Each structure stands twice: as structure tokens, then as C-alpha cells.
């Protein structure tokens, strides 16, 4: 017979939840119960289409199942330009809080938001919980799609990779976002880094399963296992685009999996140091970008301390070193994709996809910065 007994003890996930209840209860208020329920329930995937495969059959199969490419759907609409209230004022409010200086606050961008092209990601409609089958290799042994949290495609989209760009992916393993960036087929040189050696080797395997060999040659792609915080000793003022997808409390994982959980007692120190590490990584990414270049910072946590706060800190530190940045509004993206994702309302800086049962993606936080000088 079946037995239903008291809940087994889950020390790590319980610790994570207690933490979240306290922090996010306050931060998200009335939204929290619904976000919490999403975090604790089956997440939803997206199928990032591999342009290096002949994927016509796959696409029509996905379409028959009722999925659609959420990126393509937005590109059918008019060019994306900022909507709604100007976000410049918002940045100034933030500056008033004393954390950052006023000067960057007024630098709110008002040119239309342009997105990386050729990234296609299929998702099932809202409320549909059908799961994707895992992708099968084609004749060239490449996989036709990569399954990931569809919201993690957004930082890659807003990075706006253009023809001939050099791009740095500072914390890249296991490589979902790298695969997405490469779909643009526009990158002249891609530098892929992750401090973890084992994860870097996993990343290489992923690259070989999705990208043809000739695009992985050393003159086009460099894979390193360096400490990203020290990047400036290696390269500065170099890249057109930099993605800084930092290690974080990985909220969904921490709320549901005991293993490898950052809320375990022995990792308390590591967890407390995260905002500092994140700030260092973002600052390194900013320095690696050339003047005029763009940086996207992203996490998969809901935590203000790891999101807005880190961005503020990095902006301030950069300024002290004479680097000025402009926060690029992502409101147009939010406006266009609010049918697919649930965005948190009223963030001071950046945008955030929050879990919701009917569209259980995220959490993904992202903030885009343009380096002025």
C-alpha cells in the first residue's frame, strides 16, 4: 500500500524557502504567493532552434504540436521603440537614493531597442504544460534544438549582436546563452569563459553538439577557464558586446533541489559573498567592453541584492574609474513579450521575468548598459 507520512526533512530547500519568504515577501508583496508557487512547480522550457541544422521538419513538427517561436512573433510587429513613461526619471530616482551619482541618471536611452537577429525559440502557449521531447541529432550529428528556460534567451536577444561584432561571454557554462548568441551568425570573434574547468569542458561538448566545426576554429572562438573578476588584467576596452551571466542563488534550483544547494550550511559564506562577486564580474565585463560597446548583466534570481543593487554598485565603481554608462531601457521588450512572459512591475533598473504557473519561466533578471566612454 501507499503511505503518506509527514514531510521528509529537506534542510536546504527549506532554508532557501525561509529566506525567500522573508526577502521576496517584502520585495514582491502580493505577487509573492503566485511567484512562489511557480518556483515550486514544474518549470517550462523553450526549444532554442539550431540554425545550423536543417530544421524544417522539426519546426513543422513543433508547430503541429501547437508551439510557436515567441521571438519571431514579436519581430512581425513594428520596430521596437521605447514605450510608456520615460525610464530616465526612474534612473534619477535611483540616483537620488545616494547609491549612484546623478550624471548617469539623465542618460536614459531613447533610441529604439534593437535585438539580436535570427534567434528562434519555440514555446507552448500559456497554460499548456506539454513537454518537449529531447532533440535528436540530424545527419551532420548536430542537435536541432537546445532546451532551456525560454526566458534565458532574453539577455541574448537584448544584447543586440550585429554583423562583425566581437563578443565576450564571461560566465558561459554550460552554454545555453552561448548557443543562442551563435545563432545570429553575425559574430566575428567570440570569447567564451567560465572559471570552472569542469563546466568549461561541458560547455565545449555542448558547442560541438550544436555548432559546426568550422565555426569553432580558434580565429573565431576562444574558450578560457579564467576567473572573470580578473579579466581586466587580460583584456580591456575590447568587445562590442559583453554578456555577464553571473553565478547567483539560482532560486528555482535552490527551492526544489537538495543537491548542490547554495543554501546548505557549508555554503553560507559563498552565498553571502555573491553580491560582491557579481559586482566584480559586472565591473570586469564593463571594462572589457569598448567605449560605445554594450553590456548585459543577468541572473536567475529574484533578489534585489543580486540584481538592481549589483548594477548600482558597478555603475558607481565604474564611474570612479572614469567609465560612464547609460542604462538602456528594456521596456519595449517587456511590452512586446508580456504575452509570453510575466514581467515584474516597476523595477528601478532592468527587467525581470518572474515565474507564474501559466507561463512558468524564470526567474531571469537582466539589465542592459551602454558604455559611453
Amino acid at each position: 500500500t501507499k503511505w503518506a507520512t509527514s514531510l521528509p526533512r529537506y534542510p536546504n530547500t527549506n532554508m532557501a524557502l525561509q529566506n525567500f519568504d522573508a526577502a521576496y515577501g517584502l520585495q514582491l508583496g502580493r505577487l509573492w504567493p503566485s511567484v512562489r508557487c511557480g518556483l515550486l512547480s514544474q518549470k517550462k522550457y523553450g526549444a532554442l532552434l539550431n540554425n545550423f541544422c536543417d530544421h524544417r521538419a522539426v519546426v513543422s513538427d513543433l508547430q503541429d504540436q501547437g508551439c510557436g517561436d515567441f521571438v519571431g512573433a514579436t519581430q512581425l510587429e513594428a520596430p521596437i521603440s521605447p514605450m510608456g513613461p520615460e525610464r530616465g526619471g526612474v534612473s534619477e530616482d535611483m540616483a537620488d537614493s545616494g547609491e549612484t551619482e546623478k550624471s548617469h541618471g539623465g542618460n536614459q536611452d531613447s533610441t529604439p531597442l534593437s535585438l539580436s537577429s535570427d534567434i528562434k525559440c519555440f514555446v507552448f502557449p500559456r497554460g499548456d504544460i506539454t513537454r518537449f521531447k529531447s532533440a535528436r541529432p540530424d545527419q551532420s550529428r548536430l542537435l536541432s534544438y537546445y532546451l532551456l528556460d525560454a526566458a534565458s534567451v532574453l539577455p541574448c536577444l537584448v544584447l543586440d549582436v550585429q554583423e562583425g561584432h566581437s563578443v565576450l561571454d564571461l560566465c558561459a557554462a554550460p552554454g545555453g546563452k552561448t548557443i543562442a548568441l551563435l545563432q545570429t551568425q553575425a559574430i566575428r570573434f567570440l570569447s567564451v569563459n567560465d572559471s570552472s574547468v569542469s563546466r568549461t569542458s561541458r560547455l565545449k561538448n555542448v558547442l560541438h553538439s550544436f555548432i559546426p566545426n568550422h565555426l569553432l576554429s580558434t580565429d573565431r572562438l576562444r574558450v578560457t577557464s579564467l576567473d572573470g573578476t580578473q579579466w581586466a588584467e587580460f583584456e580591456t576596452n575590447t568587445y562590442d558586446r559583453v554578456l555577464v551571466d553571473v553565478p547567483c542563488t539560482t532560486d528555482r534550483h535552490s527551492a526544489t533541489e537538495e543537491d548542490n544547494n547554495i543554501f546548505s550550511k557549508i555554503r553560507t559564506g559563498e552565498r553571502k559573498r555573491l553580491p560582491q562577486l557579481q559586482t566584480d564580474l559586472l565591473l570586469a565585463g564593463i571594462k572589457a567592453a569598448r567605449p560605445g560597446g554594450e553590456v548585459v548583466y543577468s541572473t536567475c534570481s529574484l533578489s534585489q541584492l543580486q540584481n538592481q543593487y549589483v548594477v548600482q554598485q558597478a555603475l558607481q565603481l565604474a564611474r570612479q574609474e572614469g567609465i560612464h554608462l547609460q542604462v538602456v531601457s528594456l521596456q519595449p521588450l517587456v511590452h512586446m513579450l508580456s504575452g509570453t512572459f510575466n514581467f515584474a512591475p516597476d523595477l528601478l533598473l532592468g527587467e525581470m521575468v518572474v515565474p507564474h504557473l501559466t507561463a512558468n519561466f524564470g526567474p531571469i533578471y537582466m539589465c542592459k548598459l551602454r558604455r559611453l566612454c
Partner: protein
Amino acid sequence: QHDHGKSYPGQPVARELSVRSFLDMGFTDTQAELLHDTVSKAKGSAAAQQTLTSLTALFVLGLNPSSVLKVLEKCPELHHIKESQLTQRINHLRKLGLVEGSLQRVVAHYPQILTVPVKRVKTVVLFIREKCLFTVQQVAEIIRDSPAVVLEDLGQLEYKFQYVFFRMGVKQAEMVKSKLFRFPLEEVRCRHCFLERRGLYQTPDKKGQTLIENPKLSQILHTDRETYLVDIARGTAEEYDTFGKMMAREWQEEERRERDIGAD
């Protein structure tokens, strides 16, 4: 002991079941014709006799003609049950503590209970008392409020009890009060899990304490969907619908895992 002027089945007068005899029992014209129809279709005097015994037993229980008719409509099997069995079953229910009034209500709401052999009812009652530690009095209330338990799978019944006892931390008295056994396990679990994941329900610790105030079991179960969602879960219908689909899948997978482990 019966009213004068009415003849009751079982008495020699009414061996032949004419429309007239039904009218005599107090049925209205339409009711009488309906009954007569049913009985004539049954064919054979044995069948007619059976209907008579059922009617008698139901009248003796004190049900009025229209309730009797409804009961027979809801549960046509009653036409075919022997009088002795019927009497035995009714007596047994009385012995379990279903006093006058509640016995009639149970039969009116769930006439199927009279199709269940005494032995089965005894097994279920013993099971509820021994495995779930309900008192005699509580068992009577359970049967009164949720008579369908007598036909429920015992494994399921035990699981439901354990779920509410251990996972929700609810004691027997409150289970009885909230008429828990009326609700299918899936519904109980779904409503509870939805709250739990939203952070609105906590399993009490050993001392029975929680950090938040849990809603009462009866509030969780006895509100209609809309009220449950708005007042208790503070969620939308879309969320809850999706959640239901997810839960169904999660539980299927859980069961499959358990079967696989069992098969090893």
C-alpha cells in the same frame, strides 16, 4: 402502527401491483403510473414481489412517497434486494449509531448504501476505527456525512487519512467536522498543495505549531472554487487550472516511480 385507510404492501390485499395500489400507498397519480410502469417492465411476480419488499422497507424507514420514488430512481438495484437483507442492513446501520432522522437522510441521499452487504460495512468501520483511530461516535458521523466511504477502496481511504493527518496536521475531530471523506483525494491534495506552494499553508511541527495561521480544513474544502481562489488561495482560475494539470502529472510520475521501486 400504520395509518388507517392505506393498505401497505406485504399485506395480502396488495399482492397485485396496480396503479390503484400505488395510489393507496400515497403516491400521486404520476408517481403511481411511473412505478407501475417500472414494475410491469420488470415482469414476473417475483420481480413485483421484490419491488414490494423494497417499498415496504423504505416506508417502514419513514420515507414519504416522493422520497421513496426518488430513492428508487437513484438506485434501481433496490428493486432486486431481498427483504431480509434490506432489513438486516438497515438494522446494522442503526446499530452503528445512525439515529432516526440521520438514517433517513443517509438513505435518501445515498440509497446505494442499502446495496452494500453488512459484512463490507463492518470491514470498513473496523478499518476506520483501527487504522485511523476514529471513535465509535466519529465513525457514525462519518457514515452519516459521507456514506459513500463504505464503497471506497480501503487503501485510498487510508492514504487520504494519512495525508490529512500527517501532511496537513489535522486531527480526527476536525476531519469529521469538515466532512473530509466526502471529497476525493485528488481534490483535497490539489487544494492543499496549491496553498502550501503559495506559502499559505504549513505542516505543523511536533508541537502542532506553525509560523503562519493555516486556514481550517473546512474552509479549504467547503468553499466553492471561486471563493476558495479569491479568499483563501488568492490566486486566479487560470493558475489553479494549470496547477491541477501539473499535479495530475506529478502524481502519475510519483506513482510510476513507486511501482518501479516496488518491482525491483
